[in-house]
């Protein structure tokens, strides 16, 4: 029997004691893929009895190439907008069959979560189905060839928002996806980055214990779409948190909690100029990005619980 204490504080999973089984192995993702780090680590935490659902997107395209099947656990491809509703169905179906000791996990990219799949995700949280939803955010529709999504930040060059004399690339700012999800009064929501793998593992482990919907927004870099060297995947995902362009936070019991509050931010210019998609940015664009970041942090520091 689990006492309430053990549910609140699950056994910590680290690299030393996590399962040595690989559940996402031999896939065809690009070298240095950040999304596959996110999927691989999450599956290692949730374990063999995970029922995973993937919408049309990179992880579905690289994992399920007939006759290859890179997943060692139960996994299915869903429609693009319907990953949350299909995973809901899987979760409810497993309950009806009387299965024990399983976890349903839906993995979707930023497009499949913040744009196309948003209404299904909203419905899933509303119904209170028992499943974990992980959004790996690579800031554009990468699988179809780098088109702008709702989570693409200002100034990004994508194939649908080219940069030139008149345009700085993407003109819109990143959606506040985490706050949108938290506004549903979800039991547990968190943001994480693959640059901080232990923090991400802890959050997945925590979400695993929740009976009901839980959501994790994980920042996952994409060397192909971002024009970065393959070996800097983790470095960039770590740096983005240190520059303040992404934040690590949790939402629980109706309260926002900031996990990391850097005293001083690292240079945005230094960080962005390493990426091909930001090569064209002018000083004016950097000012706009810095202003947007400072506004966001001012709000977060004012209203959220600080670490």
């Amino acid at each position, binding site marked *: 029997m689990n006492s309430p204490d053990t549910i609140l504080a699950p056994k910590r999973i680290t*690299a*030393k004691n996590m399962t*040595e*089984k*690989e559940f*996402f*192995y*031999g*896939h*065809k*993702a690009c*070298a*240095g*893929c*950040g999304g*596959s*780090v996110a999927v*691989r*680590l999450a599956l290692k935490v949730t374990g063999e009895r995970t029922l995973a659902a993937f919408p049309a997107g990179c992880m579905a395209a690289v994992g*399920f190439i*007939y*006759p*290859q*099947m*890179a*997943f*060692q*656990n*139960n*996994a299915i491809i869903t429609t693009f907008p319907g990953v949350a509703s299909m995973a809901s169905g899987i979760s409810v179906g497993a309950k009806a069959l009387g299965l024990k000791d399983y976890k349903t996990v839906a993995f979707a990219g930023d497009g499949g979560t913040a744009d196309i799949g948003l209404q299904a995700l909203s419905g899933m949280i509303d119904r209170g189905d028992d499943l974990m939803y992980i959004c790996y955010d690579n800031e554009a529709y990468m699988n179809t060839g780098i088109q702008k999504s709702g989570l693409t930040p200002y100034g990004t060059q994508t194939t649908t928002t080219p940069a030139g004399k008149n345009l700085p690339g993407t003109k819109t700012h990143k959606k506040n996806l985490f706050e949108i999800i938290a506004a549903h009064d979800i039991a547990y929501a968190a943001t994480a980055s*693959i640059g901080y*793998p*232990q923090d991400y*593992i802890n959050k997945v482990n925590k979400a695993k214990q929740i009976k009901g919907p839980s959501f994790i927004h994980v920042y996952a870099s994409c*060397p192909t779409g971002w024009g970065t*060297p*393959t*070996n*800097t*995947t*983790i*470095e960039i995902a770590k740096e983005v948190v240190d520059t303040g362009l992404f934040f690590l936070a949790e939402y629980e019991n109706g309260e926002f909690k900031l996990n990391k509050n850097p005293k001083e931010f690292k240079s945005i210019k230094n960080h962005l100029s390493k990426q091909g998609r930001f090569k064209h940015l002018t000083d004016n664009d950097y000012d706009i990005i810095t202003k947007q970041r400072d506004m966001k942090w001012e709000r977060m520091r004012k209203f959220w619980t600080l670490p």
Partner: protein
Amino acid sequence: MNRPVKQEYNRPTHIKDFPVGPQFDAGHLADENAGWRTFKPVVDAEKCINCLICYLVCPDGTIIKGENHVSVAYDYCKGCGVCANECPKDAISMVKEER
């Protein structure tokens, strides 16, 4: 077994050889990813302190835990170099593949 291994796969010759419905065995691998590589990671067993950072951040899960140091599953390593970049002791070096 911790990792699936490459299995012999005979291409279907008749329609009846194809699976009925869109399902397939989990962990069925029909070929390797080693051919993608230009540089391969080589672990210096002396320098490795077994901190397992590379194990956590490998996108392909090709770092194998060992008693005193890690090693690499070369069949599925794509040579992205993330492990070498993240290693705090510089125990992993990327060496040009020769074949």
